[in-house]
């Protein structure tokens, strides 16, 4: 290269200057983005450090059942002020069980319902109905959970108490728990209604995105519309279904307010041996337990116990995100990408 003329030097300096601002912006934004990771790391460290005493005092017993969880929580709440005398004894199985039961059943029902409803909306619904139902589904997905809880406790719970809970049923379990209509069943019912719109919205969008060619190909082979839906479209949107599943499960897992309103807020393990009464027994998942006891967070051992519940929720949601990621990676071919 020849000796640089004056203008070339100018240009180089200008480019350098430009590069420097660019570099600064990149670093700044990169730092901002990395702060998300910092936040997550902070969340894990803080919550687990705070929760540690509850886990170490109980060991593996923390996850087992034994005694009444509500009495144990009261004892922890009333523990003496001396740090050496703090009470930590806890057998949290009823809460874990309630969380798994309510979330699991509600999500299971919702997946089936949402896939069928999604197919209905995209493929079979009359045009006029579709134009109404789609915005309504989007709206229902955005309705605050406290409103569902309000409807649940003012409408569904009294209805269940009146029509399904007879005196005989009440007496049959009166020695362990009182039945007043707030129950696992109402919790599952309202939760299902709450998470279905979220899943349907995602599934409908995904079904829309299936290339016409694929379904036309199936139709050309003489397959009917239902079969084409089931064998082509549904397979193509598997990643979206997984995404919807993960999102809905996360919502269900973390649902605190609504379930504390309608599911009874009693630390009780509904017993499947009770037959139909099982569905009318109350329960309280982890998230609701934290909200219900928000005032007690300043009592040190009690607060630590609550953070232990939060730690379990945190781990579960991490696990959920990871499972969703793995599942979506595993069907990479012939499927549509899902965000």
């Amino acid at each position, binding site marked *: 290269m020849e000796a640089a003329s004056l203008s070339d030097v100018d240009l180089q300096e200008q480019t350098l200057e430009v590069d420097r601002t660019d570099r600064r912006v990149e670093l700044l934004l990169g730092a901002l983005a990395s702060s998300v990771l910092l936040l997550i790391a902070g969340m894990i460290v803080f919550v687990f450090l705070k929760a540690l005493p509850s886990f170490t005092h109980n060991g593996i017993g923390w996850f087992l059942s034994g005694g009444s969880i509500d009495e144990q929580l009261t004892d922890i709440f009333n523990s003496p002020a001396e740090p050496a005398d703090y009470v930590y004894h806890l057998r949290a199985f009823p809460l874990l069980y309630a969380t798994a039961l309510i979330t699991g059943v509600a999500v299971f029902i919702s997946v089936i319902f949402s896939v*069928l409803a999604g197919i209905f909306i995209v493929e079979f619904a009359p*045009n006029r109905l579709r134009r109404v139902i789609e915005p309504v589904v989007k709206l229902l997905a955005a309705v605050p959970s406290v*409103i569902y809880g*309000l409807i649940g406790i003012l409408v569904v719970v009294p209805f269940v108490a009146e029509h399904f809970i007879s005196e005989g049923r009440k007496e049959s379990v009166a020695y362990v728990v009182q039945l007043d209509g707030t129950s696992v069943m109402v919790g599952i019912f309202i939760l299902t209604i709450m998470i279905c719109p979220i899943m349907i919205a995602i599934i409908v969008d995904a079904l829309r995105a299936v290339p016409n060619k694929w379904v036309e190909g199936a139709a050309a082979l003489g397959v009917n519309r239902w079969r084409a839906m089931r064998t082509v479209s549904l397979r193509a949107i598997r990643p979206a279904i997984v995404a919807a599943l993960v999102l809905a499960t996360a919502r269900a897992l*973390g649902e*605190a307010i609504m379930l504390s309103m309608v599911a009874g807020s009693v630390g009780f393990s509904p017993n499947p041996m009770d037959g139909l009464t099982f569905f009318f027994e109350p329960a309280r998942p982890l998230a609701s337990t934290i909200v219900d006891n928000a005032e007690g967070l300043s009592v040190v051992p009690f607060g630590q116990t*609550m953070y232990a519940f939060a730690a379990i*929720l*945190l781990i579960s949601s991490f696990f959920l995100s990871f499972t969703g990621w793995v599942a979506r990676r595993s069907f990479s071919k012939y499927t549509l990408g899902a965000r």
Partner: protein
Amino acid sequence: MSVDVRTAAPGPRPGPKREPRPAPSGAHTSGAPAHDTGWSIGDRVGLIAAWICGISLCVIAASIVVFMALKGIQFLHLDMLTKSPEASVDQSTSGGFLDPLIGTLMLTVIGISIAIPVGVGIAVWLTEYGRPSALARFVESGVEIVAGTPSIVLAIFGLLVFQQSFMGVFSFTAEGGAVFGRSFIVAGTMMALIALPLVIGSTREALNTIPRHVREASYALGKDKASTIRRVLLPSARSGIATGATLGMGRICGDTAIVVILLGASMQITPEGGFLGLFRGTGSTLTSYVYNNSPSGEGNAPDKAYAAAFVLLMIVIVLNFIVGLIGKRNKPQWN
């Protein structure tokens, strides 16, 4: 049976049609008469199940909307919107919900005004820079994890952070030096984390739809990456950012757990003294008002709860409507 093939999809999709006939506005009507031999028992059951689910979805959706509308019209009075809540056993003297309404608005504004700059920044870094790519992948999954974290966990994590003594400026400090850790600014910060994934998601989507040649045209004019982002990309992504922000506002309005734990649960807005005392003070929102006045809270005033829930629902509907409006407005066309 005669049902419509979807029309929203680009281009018609032929179903297993027997007698094609012209349909209005591009809609394809396909006849699947009873003598159609392609439908096995399983197919019929599936089809019927889909119809049942679809119809029951419509019924449930309609009954929720109609029920809330009826209750709202029945119990909502205008003076509820202008009166502060009072502690009273009697529903007729317990006042309105002006303070919770203001609380909801304040919290939404605080939350979204933190979430937008941070979210847009992260989205820009992810789409435009994203180096090193391992870090970008981690950040991407990190955002997903934040989106999946229950708000109750975010709430008590926030309490833990903001109760540290150096965070005392953000909330009320008791005489013993214990930091209360509950205030509008604290709750708003945690609310921002709820809205953040939505803002990031729709901003990224908007940035990804901008074709490469637009960026190259800007570089060709001598602009560097930073000013291309600021002058070309962000203005084009405006509607995406707005969509994300509106969705985020909807989520913030509707969250209860963070409010119950981080807003101090005072019925009226109680400002602290000093600079920006209002934001360091405590209060309530419509969601916590509904929760407290439902039979499971201490207020037990179902009429008030219905009225407040109706107002909350209206806010959510309006936000939803805005999202639809933004989506419909003509976006920049790239060709």
